[in-house]
């Protein structure tokens, strides 16, 4: 625990906590209209006292948009990654631990999904289900599942061949107990690392969907939508990209630091 609250872990935890608070609390205190109100006299204005992060092409305040957009981005990414873990974990463990025919069937299924680019898959799902928040989460969640399943299968396969698993089998451990006691704790580090990386990609995937008109619908704000919108003004108003870009970068950095330390804390070998 002492390790966790020092240096990298503290910074990472602080960033993740702040982002979560912003995502949860900002909508309660700041009216939605702040993010959509247009100030036509101050379009594409740089940071000023009125608009501390500047404004976008429609004169909307970037500070409020990034703060209010946090909820959409963080929620969609978090829920989508959680969903891909919830589906991918059993798939991967069953494949890797039991092997044989089950493994072959499940992995060919996963390979089929993998053969589509993740964004295209999400796009198709989103287009079929219709554009709204829940469907965006489902689309990204399903698109990310094969990656998680593949990695978890590999890890489960590796752990299943460890002598301690064989020792436990010789000691009469049933398959379910084996998975809970021996396989899961030992593949946790891989899940944490892959999960935090996936969160970053999920934020960007949401941006891609929004750009194509299938994710967050304008005039609502999300980080991804903001980055996409800034594309045409990069040369004259670079802050329109930098503000949401920094929000994504800081969140991802915080998550990675948090994930690294979480992994170390869970590993008894690194405890002093």
């Amino acid at each position, binding site marked *: 625990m002492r390790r966790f609250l020092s240096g990298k872990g503290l910074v990472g935890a602080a960033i993740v906590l702040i982002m979560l608070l912003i995502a949860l609390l900002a909508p309660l205190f700041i009216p939605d209209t702040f993010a959509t109100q247009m100030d036509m006299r101050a379009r594409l204005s740089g940071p000023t006292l009125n608009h501390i992060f500047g404004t976008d092409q429609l004169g909307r305040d970037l500070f409020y948009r990034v703060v209010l957009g946090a909820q959409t981005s963080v929620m969609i990414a978090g829920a989508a990654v959680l969903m891909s873990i919830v589906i991918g974990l059993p798939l991967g463990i069953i494949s890797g631990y039991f092997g044989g025919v089950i493994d072959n069937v499940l992995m060919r299924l996963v390979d089929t999904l993998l053969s589509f680019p993740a964004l295209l898959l999400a796009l198709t799902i989103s287009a079929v289900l219709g554009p709204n928040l829940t469907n965006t989460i489902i689309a990204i969640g399903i698109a990310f599942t094969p990656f998680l399943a593949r990695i978890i299968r590999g890890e489960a396969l590796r752990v299943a061949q*460890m*002598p*301690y698993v*064989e*020792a*436990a*089998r*010789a*000691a*009469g*451990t*049933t398959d379910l*107990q084996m998975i809970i*006691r*021996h396989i899961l*704790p*030992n593949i*946790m580090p891989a899940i944490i690392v892959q999960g935090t990386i996936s969160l970053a990609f999920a934020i960007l995937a949401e941006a891609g969907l929004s750009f194509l008109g299938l994710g967050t619908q304008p005039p609502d704000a999300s980080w991804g939508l903001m980055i996409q919108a800034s594309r045409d003004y990069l040369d004259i108003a670079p802050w329109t990209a930098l503000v949401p870009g920094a929000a994504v970068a800081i969140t991802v950095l915080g998550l990675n630091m948090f994930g690294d330390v979480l992994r170390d804390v*869970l*590993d*008894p*070998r690194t*405890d002093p």
Partner: protein
Amino acid sequence: MTPIVNIEKLRVTFGKGTDAAVKDVSFAINPGETVCVVGESGSGKSVTSLSLMRLVEFGGGTIVDGRMTLQRDDGPIDLAQADGDTMRDIRGDEIGMIFQEPMTSLNPVFTIERQLTDGLRVHRGMTGQAARERALELLRDVRIPEPERRLKQYPHELSGGMRQRVVIAIAMACEPRLLIADEPTTALDVTIQAEILALINRLKRETGMAVMFITHDMAVVAQIADRVVVMYRGDVVEEGPVADIFANPKADYTKALLAAVPRLGEMRGKAAPEPMRLVGDTSAPKPLTPQDHPEPLLEVKNLTTYFPVKGGPLRRHVANVHAVEDVTFTLNKGETLSLVGESGCGKSSCGRSILRLVEPTSGSVIVDRKDILAANHRDLRLLRRQMQMIFQDPFASLNPYMRLSAQVAEPLRNFGLASGSALQDRVAGLFDRVELPRDYMRRFPHELSGGQRQRIAIARALAVSPKLIIADEAVSALDVSVQAQVLNLMMELQADLGLSFLFISHDMAVVERISHHVAVMYLGRIVEIGPRAAIFENPQHSYTKSLMQAVPIADPAKRKLEGDLNFRPIPSPMHPLSYAPAQSLYDTVAAGHLVLRDIERTTDANP
């Protein structure tokens, strides 16, 4: 005589705030001399050799003090101060190195020729035909059969022993003044070890180079050393000629190290197994009382295990590896039967087949009148209460994420034998039984040493009060003093609880000490089985004889010469599906002493 290398007051640390790995080491190596640096794990012997090559820095070490003077053609140089370019010139040219693992110290994607000529090109500027001829000459020097063909081959096409010969040839390519060999035979079978040791001895005699030989094995020291440097926790505790070290050790640590080494042949004429001598314990070991009327516990009949080999684009079943071939034996209650043999002989597969950790192809295994192979999934789980296993690698056989108490408790919980405070009491009792302090219960595996972990593995195996324990190379990974303690614990448990051990090992000296019966395996078959005394004092099968002959003896007066040894490589156990193996037929030499018939003619190991 000026020494080739003179190490003075060497001190090496790894990171701040840690103890120095090498504290204050001084010794010299003369031309034409083999200096054995011997010690247990953590003694700093490998760190010393890596410092000499200045490779220790790549592993995070720092040479903080001391001098390492190497004699070169243009005068002495202090290796501790030499810069990167100078060291690159010296490595592979003036100092050659052989590593422990022949499987990984060759690059799998280059031919043998390419790897042999690398050093020649860099240090001697040799290319083309000249380099090829030198490479051929080197392969002949290390006595590799068909050297011309080998040049074009890749490492995976060569056996382990041949690969280690290639590694030696590479180290010898530029005629080094000093050859550093870091545990070069530890990963090899005993017959190959004997050949490699004899080879290094001959090369040293012929070229006059100095050899620094690092090992933990006193028997190997006796076979190869001129002078011995004994290291303990980063310090040199004793140094002297090999005969003196063995005949008259001065330091207590050296005495203890020598005492703990079991010597092949020392059990001659003794009726029952005896505990190992312990470090600092001079009292004569008391033998285990032999049983009058032993009853059979484990009966294995015609056990056969094949592993399918898949090949072709459709991954069809194209051949079988005949891991265990028609094996029959009986293990009595309260006794130890050892399965010995070289890697790939099927001894581990045999042990795992009995527990059905791998599925045998045919045969029968009866434990306490119950048929293991006929049991269904549920019954098998219950039958496993009777028989437990201890694995070789104490680092991999414990789950790093589970507390030790939970790991020892697992079998008890699996079978619902105890719960709550009763479970805790049982686990505490097991910790007492294997002589580990109870406060270790809350610890994790990484906090324990190898020997302590193996005690945990024994406690876990004992938890369900089994009748049979299969110990697969259970002490091979341990230092010799720790090995003696763990073996004694096992023998004590046998005497107290009436356990039967199936002891799988390649170490003939350990086997001689602890076994009631011995079975020698070769190519999946038992070639000879009988009471310990019969196997060790009156071996009949030629393979048993050659195996005994290869075992290094911890006595510098009993060295083996290259000419004494001429082993044929073990043939492949892989056969096409149509192959029908012959039945194992045995001749009875004496009561209970059986020798395999017939196979002698086709696979004679020592003609």
